[in-house]
């Protein structure tokens, strides 16, 4: 069964991977998803960013529901 995650990238994350929206087939928890993202986009290894699943920030490791919307949210410092 296909499980397509809808990924939205923000700020530096979008800039580094050159995309702000993408789809990714994936099964597994949030830690596995993060690892898969770093394999697909090694340029993200040097960045700190927070994951949100279906518009909720992930604390620790969490289940990723099927066809979830994932946001990759880096911090901004500018003012």
């Amino acid at each position: 069964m296909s499980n397509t995650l809808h990924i939205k990238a923000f700020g530096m994350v979008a800039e580094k991977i050159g995309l702000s929206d993408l789809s990714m087939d994936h099964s597994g928890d949030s830690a596995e998803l993060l690892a898969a993202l770093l394999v697909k986009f090694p340029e993200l290894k040097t960045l700190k960013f927070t994951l949100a699943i279906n518009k909720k920030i992930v604390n620790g490791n969490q289940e990723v529901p099927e066809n979830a919307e994932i946001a990759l949210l880096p911090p901004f410092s500018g003012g």
Partner: protein
Amino acid sequence: MSRFERQIILNGFGIEGQQNLKKAKVLLIGAGGLGCPILLYLAAAGVGKIGIVDGDTVAISNLNRQVLYGENDLGKNKAETAARYFQGKYSDIKWEVFPEFISVENAQEMISGYDLVIDGSDNFPTRYLVNDACVLLGKPLVFGAIYQHEGQVSVFNLGENACNYRDLYPKMPTATEVPNCAETGVLGVLPGIIGNLMALEAIKVLSGFGKPLKNKVLFFNSIASQSYEVEITPNPESREDMPASLTSFEIMDYELACEGVKQLTWDEAMSKMGLDIAFVDVREPGELPPLECTGLMKIPLSTFPDKLDLLEDAEEILFFCQSGIRSQKAAQQLQRDYPEKRIYSIKGGINALKTNHS
């Protein structure tokens, strides 16, 4: 008819909302791209007392977004210039000016007399410093930040079960990880929009009107004209790197924490001994107890950076000092010159050795 007539007649805001604003004391950190619109709207809305913290002076490149300043203000302090502008405009607001940057030394004194803090600063060390001070002093914090075409806004530390910045970003990014406006450029309208959202959140918190972005963060993208709201929940990890008390806050080095010096315990350090590693005491001569062992180098921090060439050939370096602060500074300095070297600081310094191995 008062100058607040049009908001007093607003259903739900009323005289009470206005009185709440009049009683309120708000401290703004940073009178730059975010701070200028924040000040314009808080002053117009009739906040009773506004404090402005900024040690920076007006530069010509600021003028595309820092709309309170003009060509005649170049070189002048921003906090003083902004307050002067409003003093000529409204007679019913008290102003307090701090023409200096916020630090662990002055933060408590600046913040404690205010009801609400607004962070419009422009760097990570200050953002974590302001967040931690607000958590420790129990002050709500309106947060906003921008990156190129995007902004983020939230209200931290408001009431019970409130989240703070570290619940969103527990680990500090390094200063070099995310470039600032000076490096990437910015259209002046973006800080205008984000600053206005921050002013709106401040007015909501202070007046009791509307629903503040508590435990939520709003992202806005100016190029795509899109916003995205995400829910935050308290994160156990967020407490790990936060000072536990005001006493430990006062000795935090936020610049250093953001640079991310790698730290080792004495046990971890001992396991590396004998390998090809330079072991360096950066204490000044005469500090006790002296440590003597083969291969130990003594390079007091006061002799930096002149003596750093002594470490030119070492690929892996371990610094220690009395309490673990100066050794982090040493590591930080050396890492800047030699980014490829593996450099560590021993956590807690000699003091930690005495307690753990006595």
